[in-house]
């Protein structure tokens, strides 16, 4: 029997707002001394009340807009009740039936549209550290804003999932709302995986949620593992259990964590401490207008406007910093007639790090590099060879440690070449030959 995977994704993205979701404590918890970024609110002390962070709500809406969602004019927060030591109030403030954003989509490179079910706002929990038979709680992370992005079960394989995740990561980074660093836990993912018969049109009656995945590599592995595991069960004529499984790195396998029988009843109800959130159309339009150009749009524009290859355009727009850097360099390059294509090539081939060199300098380098190239690598090599042969004293001095001698040799090469060369490049070449 042939089976077709049905995969949906839940992704949590931690926002990099200054303060936490419901109090004014700093949300920057990474690497901080435990329990130093806390107050009565994020510790859930008796009587403390949550006041929502407007910046976080705005950013959540922006993520929704970037994912082509409908933004609700009326939404609210709800309480998700469950007990866990890292949850100081005994409930998490989240959104249940009226999230900020719903019904969006994202398009993959194969033109396939992945439906976005919803994008909602919630708060992070504290962090538990287990050592021996004791467990320590750090509440620095408690109440840091989290955005949850849920897709429809539209993925059919791991590569679609990974492409989606990379796109999502790129989008939130473009928006500047999260570092989306998987290793730091800024971005966490939980795939829901099941299999259906190839020709079946309805969804399978079970699904398996996989937790504890902290890299794109593991999501691929976990999906592959689950598909194989479920296929085997189905081939035996049985139905895989509806359950939550965890990815175990050392076993390279998913392991059962919680079955359907002990599925939680979260007893959601409207959070009485926070009035409903009204987002007027004007407000939504204002947020829309504040959004930067997003990766897909930028990719297409750069490709069209500067006749870049699709490959180059993709690499240049991979992150917003590089794309912005490229456009600034194009601006600077105009004055000295350096074509955008050459700039793109130079940035890509020389692996230019935008923070190392300002765009104007980059243009100068491209100009001089081009002149060097014009005399040809062979010609330059010949000149260097001649100069070294004719100045053995200087060569010896250099080898003895008089590094200044290289400037003497450099001057000779320049004179021989009778052209303005990129001194940096020539110097590097000379050093190479003198090794």
């Amino acid at each position, binding site marked *: 029997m042939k089976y077709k995977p049905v995969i949906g994704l839940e992704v949590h993205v931690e926002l990099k707002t200054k303060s936490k979701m419901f109090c004014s404590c700093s949300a920057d918890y990474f690497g901080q001394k435990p329990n130093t970024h806390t107050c*009565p609110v994020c510790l*859930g*002390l*008796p*009587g*403390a*009340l*949550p*006041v*929502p962070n407007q910046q976080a709500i705005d950013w959540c809406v922006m993520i929704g807009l970037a994912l082509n969602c409908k933004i609700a004019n009326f939404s609210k927060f709800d*309480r998700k*009740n469950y*007990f866990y*030591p890292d949850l*100081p*109030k*005994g*409930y998490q403030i989240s959104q249940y039936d009226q999230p900020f954003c719903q019904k969006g989509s994202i398009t993959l490179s194969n033109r396939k549209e992945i439906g976005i079910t919803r994008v909602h706002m919630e708060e992070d929990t504290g962090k538990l550290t287990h050592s021996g038979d004791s467990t320590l*709680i750090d509440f620095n992370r408690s109440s840091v804003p989290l955005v949850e992005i849920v897709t429809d079960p539209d993925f059919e394989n791991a590569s679609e999932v990974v492409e989606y995740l990379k796109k999502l990561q790129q989008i939130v980074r473009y928006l500047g709302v999260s570092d989306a660093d998987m290793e730091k836990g800024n971005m966490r993912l939980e795939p829901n995986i099941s299999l259906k018969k190839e020709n079946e049109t309805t969804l399978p009656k079970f699904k398996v949620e996989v937790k504890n995945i902290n890299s794109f590599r593991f999501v691929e592995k976990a999906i592959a593992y689950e598909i194989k595991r479920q296929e085997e069960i189905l081939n035996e004529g049985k139905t895989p259990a509806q359950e939550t499984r965890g990815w175990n790195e050392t076993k390279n396998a998913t392991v059962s964590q919680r079955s359907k029988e002990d599925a939680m*009843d979260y*007893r*959601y*109800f409207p959070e*009485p*401490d*926070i*009035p409903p959130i009204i987002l007027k159309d004007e407000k939504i339009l204002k947020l829309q207008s504040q959004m930067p150009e997003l990766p897909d749009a930028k990719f297409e524009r750069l490709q069209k406007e500067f006749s870049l290859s699709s490959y180059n355009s993709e690499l240049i727009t991979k992150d917003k910093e590089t794309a912005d850097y490229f456009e600034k360099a194009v601006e600077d390059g105009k004055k000295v007639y350096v074509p955008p294509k050459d700039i793109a090539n130079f940035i890509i081939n020389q692996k230019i790090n935008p923070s190392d060199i300002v765009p104007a300098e980059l243009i100068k380098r491209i100009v001089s590099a081009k002149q060097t190239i014009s005399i040809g690598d062979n010609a330059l090599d010949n000149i260097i060879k001649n100069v070294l042969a004719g100045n053995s004293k200087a060569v010896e001095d250099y080898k003895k440690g008089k590094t200044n001698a290289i400037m003497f040799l450099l001057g000779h090469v320049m004179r021989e070449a009778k052209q303005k060369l990129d001194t940096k490049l020539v110097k590097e070449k000379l050093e190479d030959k003198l090794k």
Partner: protein
Amino acid sequence: MNLNQLTIKEAREGLRNKQFSSVDLTRDCLTQIKKHNSALNAFISVTEEEALMSAKKADKSIEDGTSLPLLGIPIALKDLFSTKGIKTTAASNVLRDYIPQYDATVVRKLKDAGAVIVGKTNLDAWAHGSSGENSDFGPTKNPWNKNFVPGGSSSGSAVSVASDMCLAATGTDTGGSIRLPSSFNNVVGLKPTYGRVSRYGIIAMASSLDSIGHFTKTVEDCATIFNITKGEDIYDATTLPDATEDFYKNLNKGVKRIRIGIPKEFVVSGLDPEVKLLFEKAVNTFANLGAEITEVSLPYTKYGIAAYYIIQPSEVSSNLARYDGIRYGNGRESFGDEAKRRIMLGTFTLSSGYYDAYYKKAMSVRTLIKNDFDKAFEKVEALISPVCPTYPWKLGEKINDPLKMYLSDALTVTVNIAGIPSLSVPAGFSKDKLPFGIQIMGKQLSEDLLFQIGNSFEKETNYYKQKPLLR
């Protein structure tokens, strides 16, 4: 006459005119507490040292010419109000050793206004109860007759004011917890508009119903405290934007031509005949003062208790989840029966499969009850009714019958459900000399009018001048 028997207004005058000091005044209150607290059990903690210290400070400020609305005035706080460095127990064993790291907004405001805090008052644990008996620190007794309940849940606060242990005390009212004890103790009690006084730092019972109010001896004193506690708070997202208002401006304007409605559903069945008689007397007083009395209908009143006993335990079950035994030093086994009952009720009504039938339906009833009041306030400016269908009952009388206990809130809960303000004022005594109170209800943000009506009634009747005989 001892200084502790003064009203806030009288005490402020005395302090200003240097007839006595805040230390004198505070000492008299502390002496009264020492004399009678063992019998009445109104206080869980008495903060004598801190009180005398801030009284001294207040005296110095008065000397320096500082003028603050409560400078040097001794008050008490329900033990649900977080006080930095002072034990705050909610009258539950779960929090018997809990010392908050911060002051509730209202506590901060009262301190900033110069108040001297003499202690933390007893209550039904977690504010669960109508009698004052459900405290892990023992029941509070009614100073008018120690065999009777003082009403709850703000039992200790009402008793402390009624027995002159302080000049005012704070309370919380989720379903009647201020109005009921105020009517059972012959003191004035205010349940403000929902969201008009910050809840920040006050241990939550049912967040969408909790109103933060207070007890005083007179209506004017009530307005004085309200003027300090009310207002928007950046720490409470449910507080309402609030303009400054002069609550004294209309205080003495009387009730001439003010339309006052009698909700007929409040005065039909279950009303004690003697309560009914005294209520009619109160209505006549208003009529004689020139108010226009009309009957109005609030048809959904009969669903009030049912809706309340779904919404309230639902929220309670969630609000008490944080006392999971990991922090605060005491485990879940320290919860009393009533808290456990409400946790179970609320957990049930919020469970998947039951949510629609219970919580959601109760929320629809909530809207209908609100509409009832809205319609009534198109016809009249205020409504009056007895606070409770009965007089205070004997200690132990209803303690094994939770349903009967819940029904004592029949006339108070709809006000919380609708989020409107209600002022409870003394309105006489039974033939056994047990107090009776009426409540004056108005639309949202109409506290000003409630003070005007209440003050007019108080000036005419002077019930507040009668004091329990303490031995």
